[in-house]
């Protein structure tokens, strides 16, 4: 996830990860798309940093695995973040609504803001903590990632 450096000629040509975000942002879909893969989230800029760190610290990273996971990235939370960021604008009116707050913990019904994106009780999860511990990586939040992605998408509207 995250803002693309090179934009395609139209939103419909975006890659598999960004296409569902575009579909909600542009209002091309009325329904919340299913989550991709395991539902875990990491920003592409963090992924790039991880690769460079692994290369530059080869004596430490040799033979190791590192999970790049900031947390949970449900598409309903993506829609909620977009609608809050574009509240009161023409763009905001078109953004897919779904059922705000459904499927995760942390939607603030009073303010309409996504305070956090927690798993529902009983859900399996993937830990990206080793990467913070060993690489000193600071994860970009889903909120920041989606806002930066949407800014890049504005040129395609």
């Amino acid at each position, binding site marked *: 996830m995250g803002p693309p450096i090179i934009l395609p000629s139209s939103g419909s040509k975006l890659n598999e990860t960004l296409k569902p975000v575009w579909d909600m942002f542009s209002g091309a879909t009325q329904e919340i798309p299913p989550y991709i893969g395991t539902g875990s989230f990491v920003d592409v800029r963090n992924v790039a940093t*991880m*690769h460079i760190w*692994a290369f530059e610290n080869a004596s430490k990273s040799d033979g190791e695995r*590192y999970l790049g*996971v900031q947390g949970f990235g449900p598409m309903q939370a993506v829609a909620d973040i977009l609608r809050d960021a574009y509240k009161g604008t023409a763009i905001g009116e078109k953004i897919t609504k779904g059922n705000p707050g459904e499927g995760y913990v942390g939607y603030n019904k009073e303010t309409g803001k996504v305070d956090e994106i927690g798993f529902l009780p009983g859900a399996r*999860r993937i830990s990206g903590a080793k990467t913070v511990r060993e690489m000193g990586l600071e994860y970009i939040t889903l909120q920041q990632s989606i806002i930066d992605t949407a800014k890049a998408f504005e040129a395609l509207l």
Partner: protein
Amino acid sequence: MVIPAVRGAETVLASALKAGPQLTSVVVTSSTIAVVNPVEGEYVFTEKDYATFALEKALKDKEAGEKTPAGILYGASKTASDRAVWKFRDEYKVSIPPHVDHVHTF
């Protein structure tokens, strides 16, 4: 889906080896799908976990002549290509020492 993923990894690594001493490290981008297995309850997956379910299911289906769903095949391809990378590391670490790292991402 599984065979091209494995051959793809093998081909890239074999080509990289031709660079000789210029090659110092190999950083591999994988997927969290190569980590998770179906589980009950609040299990937390870490770097210690290896997905096995999808590849086993795909192999069983193949033996029985049954079609494997695309999502399972995708997971199977990630596990199979991962294993190809680790195998390559074991085979070549003595002659030319590439640092094979795994960056597992979404």
